[in-house]
C-alpha cells in the first residue's frame, strides 16, 4: 500500500457506494414531498412512471458518485507541508491545507460505512472561511496513517522510519477508559440544561401539533381545558413534576450513552485520540498544543462521587463557523476522576497547574446582579400586586425568589476568582457547576481592562482575556493588581514569542 500519500490517489472504490447513497438521500430529501403527493394522487398507470422516476434517481446518483470518485484525489506535499485535495466533476476545485493549520482530524463511521467496512475522514482547519475536507471512504489503516501524517508533520520531516515504530507501539493502550457504570453516573449528574432544552422543544412541538389536530377535528377546546384544570390538584402536580424529572433523567442518560459510550483516550505520538459513540463511532485526534482553553467542572453530586467533566476548547474563528462548528471544536470528556484529570492535564498542559496566587473580587460584585435580577423584578411584582388584589396569595413566592436569588448570587461571588502562576491562569466560577478554566499565558490574543468612573476611587476594575477559543472574564478585581497582572502577561506573551497554535 502507498504509505506516505505523496502521490495523488483516489479514495477507496467503495466510496462510490457511500457517495451514491449520500446523493440519493439528498435528492430523496429534496423531492420527498413530490413523491408523497404523487402517491396520494396516484392512479394505476402512473405507478410505472413513479418507479421509473425512482430508478432514474438511483442511476443518476451512482453515475454522479462514480464521476465524483474519479475526480476526487488527494495527496500530501511533503516539501510544502500541504495537504492537497482535487475535486469537482465539472469544475476543478483544489483545496490546499497547510499542515500546521490543521486543528483536528476526525475519523468517523456511520452505519453504511460500518456495513461496507470503510471510514470517513474529516479535517478541521482554523481557516477564516472554515473550509473543510471530508474524505468519505478510506480503509482503516490508511485513515490512521494519513491522520498521523497530517498531525505530526515534525516527525515526518525528521525521521521517516519512526512513524512505523510509533504505529506499532501505539497498538491502542488507552490510558483512560470511561466505563458504562461511570457513564451512568455522569448521565445522572450532569448536562441537565441541554436535556431540559430538548424536552421543552419536544413538548412545545407536541402541544403545537396537538392544537392543530384539535382544530382539524373540531374538538371543543373548552371541554378539554376544564378537564385538565380539574385534574390539576396538588397531588397530580407532584406526580407530573416527578414524571418530568424521571423523563429528564432518562433522556439525559440516553444522550450520555449515545455520545460517550466506550469513551477511550489514548496517546498517539504527541496527539490525543478520543473515541466514543454507541451507534456511530467517532474518533477525534487533537494535538495538545492546539487546545486553547482547558476546562474542568464539577457539581456537588459529582464531588461526592469523585467525578468531573473535562472539556478542551480549540480555536474557532469568526462568524463563518456557526453553532455546530463551535461545538465541534469543544471536546468533552465526562466522568474522569481527579487522578485521571491530572494525568490528562499533564498531557495537555505539560504539568498540573497550581493555584499559586489567587485574586478575589470586591464585594461590589454583588451590587448589579442583586439590583437588576432581584430588586427590580421583585419591586415591579410588588407594585403590580398592590394594584391587583388577586395576586396577593403569591407574595410568598417573591420572598422565596429573593432569598434563593441572594443565595445564588452570593455563591457565584464566592466562587468567582482567578489564580495566577507563572505558566497558568485558572479562572474559577459557577454556582452549581463549579468550573475551572485553565489558560496558558501564551494563548492570550489580546487583553481588555475596563473600569467604571464611580469605581475609580475604590480601585475596582474588570479584566477580559481574549483567546481564540473564547473569553475569560474577571470582574470587580483590585484594579492595581489587575494592571500588574496585565503587564506581567504582556511581558510573557511578547517576550517569549511562543506560538499559540
Amino acid at each position, binding site marked *: 500500500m502507498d504509505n506516505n500519500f505523496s502521490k495523488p490517489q483516489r479514495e477507496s472504490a467503495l466510496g462510490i457506494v457511500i457517495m451514491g447513497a449520500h446523493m440519493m438521500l439528498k435528492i430523496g430529501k429534496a423531492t420527498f414531498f413530490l413523491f408523497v403527493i404523487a402517491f396520494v394522487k396516484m392512479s394505476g398507470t402512473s405507478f410505472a412512471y413513479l418507479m421509473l422516476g425512482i430508478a432514474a434517481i438511483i442511476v443518476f446518483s451512482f453515475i454522479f458518485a462514480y464521476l465524483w470518485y474519479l475526480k476526487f484525489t488527494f495527496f500530501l506535499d511533503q516539501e510544502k*507541508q500541504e495537504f492537497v485535495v482535487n475535486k469537482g466533476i465539472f469544475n476543478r476545485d483544489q483545496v490546499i491545507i497547510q499542515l*500546521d493549520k490543521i486543528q483536528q482530524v476526525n475519523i468517523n463511521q456511520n452505519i453504511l460505512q460500518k456495513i461496507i467496512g470503510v471510514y470517513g475522514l474529516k479535517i478541521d482547519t*482554523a481557516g477564516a472561511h472554515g473550509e473543510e475536507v471530508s474524505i468519505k471512504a478510506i480503509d482503516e489503516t490508511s485513515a490512521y496513517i494519513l491522520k498521523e501524517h497530517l498531525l505530526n508533520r515534525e516527525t515526518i520531516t525528521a525521521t521517516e522510519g519512526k512513524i512505523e515504530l510509533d504505529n506499532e507501539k501505539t497498538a491502542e493502550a488507552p490510558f483512560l477508559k470511561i466505563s458504562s457504570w461511570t457513564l451512568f453516573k455522569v448521565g445522572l449528574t450532569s448536562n441537565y440544561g441541554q436535556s431540559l432544552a430538548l424536552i421543552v422543544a419536544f413538548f412545545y412541538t407536541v402541544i403545537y401539533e396537538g392544537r392543530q389536530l384539535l382544530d382539524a377535528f373540531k374538538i371543543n377546546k373548552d371541554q378539554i381545558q376544564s378537564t385538565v384544570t380539574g385534574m390539576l390538584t396538588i397531588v397530580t402536580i407532584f406526580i407530573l413534576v416527578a414524571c418530568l424529572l424521571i423523563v429528564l433523567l432518562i433522556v439525559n442518560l440516553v444522550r450520555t450513552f449515545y455520545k460517550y459510550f466506550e469513551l477511550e483516550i489514548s496517546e498517539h505520538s504527541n496527539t490525543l485520540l478520543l473515541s466514543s459513540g454507541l451507534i456511530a463511532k467517532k474518533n477525534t485526534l487533537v494535538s495538545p498544543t492546539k487546545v486553547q482553553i482547558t476546562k474542568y467542572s464539577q457539581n456537588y453530586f459529582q464531588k461526592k462521587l469523585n467525578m468531573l467533566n473535562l472539556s478542551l476548547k480549540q*480555536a474557532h*474563528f*469568526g*462568524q463563518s463557523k456557526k453553532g455546530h462548528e463551535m461545538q465541534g471544536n469543544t471536546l468533552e470528556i465526562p466522568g474522569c476522576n481527579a487522578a485521571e484529570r491530572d494525568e490528562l492535564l499533564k498531557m495537555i498542559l505539560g504539568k498540573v497547574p497550581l493555584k499559586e496566587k489567587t485574586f478575589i473580587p470586591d464585594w461590589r460584585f454583588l451590587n448589579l446582579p442583586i439590583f437588576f435580577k432581584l430588586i427590580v423584578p421583585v419591586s415591579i411584582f410588588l407594585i403590580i400586586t398592590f394594584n391587583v388584589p388577586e395576586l396577593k396569595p403569591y407574595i410568598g413566592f417573591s420572598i422565596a425568589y429573593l432569598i434563593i436569588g441572594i443565595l445564588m448570587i452570593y455563591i457565584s461571588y464566592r466562587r468567582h476568582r482567578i489564580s495566577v502562576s507563572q505558566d497558568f491562569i485558572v479562572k474559577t466560577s459557577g454556582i452549581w457547576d463549579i468550573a475551572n478554566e485553565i489558560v496558558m499565558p501564551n494563548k*492570550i*490574543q*489580546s*487583553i*481588555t*481592562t*475596563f*473600569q*467604571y*468612573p464611580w469605581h475609580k476611587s475604590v480601585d475596582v476594575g474588570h479584566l*477580559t482575556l*481574549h*483567546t*481564540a477559543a*473564547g*473569553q475569560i472574564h474577571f470582574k470587580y478585581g483590585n484594579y492595581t493588581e489587575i*494592571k*500588574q497582572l*496585565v*503587564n*506581567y502577561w*504582556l*511581558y510573557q*506573551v*511578547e*517576550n517569549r*514569542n511562543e*506560538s*499559540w497554535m
Partner: protein
Amino acid sequence: MSSDISFTNETVNLEHLPKYEEVLLKQPHSSYWKIICINLVIFFVLLGIGTGSLLLFVNEIKPNAVWIVPLYFILTAVFFLLFRLSFKKRGYAIRTHDVIYKSGVIAESTTIVPLNRIQHIELNEGLFSRMYKLGSLQLFTAGGQTGHIHISGIAIDEAKNIRDLLLKKLELLENPTTETEA
C-alpha cells in the same frame, strides 16, 4: 525550540515591568471631530425630515408635536455631547511589542494587542475621511470580534506609516519561524 542553549530564566520583578497604564496615549486627529459632526448632522437632518414630514402630513400625530419636537432637540444635544466625550476619551499608542487602544464614554476600557498575535491589518478610508485625509486602522487577532482594535481618525500618512511599521514587525516575527519550518 530554536535557542535552547542560551536560555535563561530569571525571576521577573513585577514592579519593574513596563506599565501599560502609564503610556502616554495619542489622541485622534482633531479633524476627526469634524467627521463625527458631519455624520451626526446627516443622521439628525434625515431624522428631522422624517419626523417633520410625519408631523406635517399625518393629522393624528400633530397633537404630539408638543413633546416630539423638544425630544428631538434634547436627543441631538445628548448625542453631540456623548460623541464629544467619547472623542475626548479615545487614545492609542504603539509600543515596540504591542498596540494600546483606550475608549469608552462611561466605562473606560483599554485593549492591548501584542504584535505577535495580530492576524491581519486593515486600513479603511471613508468618503468624508478622505476629504480630511484621515483613515481608520483595524487590527485583527484570533480572539474574535471582541478581541480586535479599531482606531479611527488617524491622519492617513500616519496610519500608513503605522501599518507599514506593523507589517514590517509582523514579518520579522514570522521569519524566524518560517526558517525553522523550511
